[in-house]
């Protein structure tokens, strides 16, 4: 979707806060929110792509102004309401109006050490050979999926070169709609001068990981 989240190359944003303190959390509630997400029981099939799409759909002003972990809260709350895990009223009050039947006990602290090494993989057995070869020129498609997509606006219509392929990976556009459909994933390199009218450094490059259906031969 052409949403507020698709920020690459947008202009008008100010300087970076390079003096930010090094500590991982700056507010107690931020740490709490991260811990909640790592600890809570999942009672609905929420994929990483669905999470990202629900975050992208946060109202634009909120997306740009609310702190990062507050956006996590908003996203998890929306997924819970959508999946029937909680109501808006329950999330507002913090009081449960209805129990969830048949729920397994939540994660206990003794399970955390092992869980830190849980590593999700997104590569899948390939069903078709890659359409493009390393070194081949490709052009990113102008049109992108109106739902979730990982094809940013700033490369659409631009010409790049395939620098690697990674076999088949879960395709986010389908995954965010509840369907796991693997597709070949490539790394594609774009010259800065191809992307930005003001770019002058001939050697500068931007690399993106793009799925096959985002690309045409150039």
């Amino acid at each position: 979707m052409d949403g507020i989240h698709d920020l690459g190359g947008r202009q008008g944003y100010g300087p970076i806060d390079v003096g930010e303190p090094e500590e991982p959390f700056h507010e107690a509630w931020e740490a709490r929110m991260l811990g909640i997400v790592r600890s809570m029981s999942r009672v609905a099939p929420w994929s990483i792509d669905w999470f990202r799409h629900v975050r992208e759909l946060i109202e634009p002003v909120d997306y740009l102004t609310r702190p990062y972990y507050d956006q996590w809260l908003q996203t998890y709350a929306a997924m819970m309401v959508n999946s029937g895990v909680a109501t808006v009223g329950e999330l507002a009050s913090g009081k449960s109006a209805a129990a969830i039947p048949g729920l397994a006990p939540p994660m206990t602290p003794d399970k955390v050490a092992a869980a830190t090494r849980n590593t999700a993989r997104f590569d899948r057995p390939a069903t078709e050979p890659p359409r493009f070869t390393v070194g081949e020129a490709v052009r990113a498609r102008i049109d992108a999926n109106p739902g979730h997509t990982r094809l940013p606006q700033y490369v659409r219509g631009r010409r790049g070169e395939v620098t690697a392929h990674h076999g088949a990976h879960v395709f986010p556009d389908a995954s965010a709609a509840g369907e796991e459909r693997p597709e070949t994933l490539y790394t594609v390199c774009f010259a800065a001068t191809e992307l930005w009218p003001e770019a002058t450094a001939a050697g500068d490059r931007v690399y993106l990981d793009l799925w096959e259906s985002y690309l045409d031969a150039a």
Partner: protein
Amino acid sequence: MSGHDSHTIAHIHEELHSHLPPEPALRVKALESLLVEKGMLDPATVDAWIEVFTEEIGPKRGAAVVARAWTDPDFKARLLADGTAAITELGFDGWAGGHLKVVENTPDVHNLIVCTLCSCYPHSVLGIPPNWYKTAAYRARAVRDPRGVLAEFGEDVPESVAIRVWDSTAELRYMVLPERPAGTEGWDAAELADLVTRNAMIGTARDLTPGKGEAG
């Protein structure tokens, strides 16, 4: 729409905006209370995760990976060929480490990591990302004005050095292998690891010459 409808979610976001408590701390408190009441959360587990990400999983891990690569050419070759396998050797596999690609700085190349579409980050080796990494400003500017961003971080990269920006648009996660600074010949891996900053592994720092950071 199998529970994946964008319009439904947009409507839920509006409802939540109108009805949740006004402060983020209060919203998080309400969420935690609700999850505990529903039997979906043990607060002691939340404490344990916070401790892990405060004490254990952070940029010290990445610095150990870099120092090992600087002192062990075979490890460096394995790290550049398959980042995930190499960090697993050190016990640093985990969250967002399933497809790690390590990109190497050289005298002619500088690498910079960003996620323009959300905030993807190699958590299992670098821990919790800084807030600035997740801001609209960094996400917007890193791909378009990397030299301007680097200048704000105190790094003036000459045009003779090519900048490669890696936008984490899929499940590959990127980490920069900085250049080993001159004047560190004979240093052991532990001494070298102390030189390696989080920003150097994101790519917003380049020169790790001993003492340079202390002056700033």
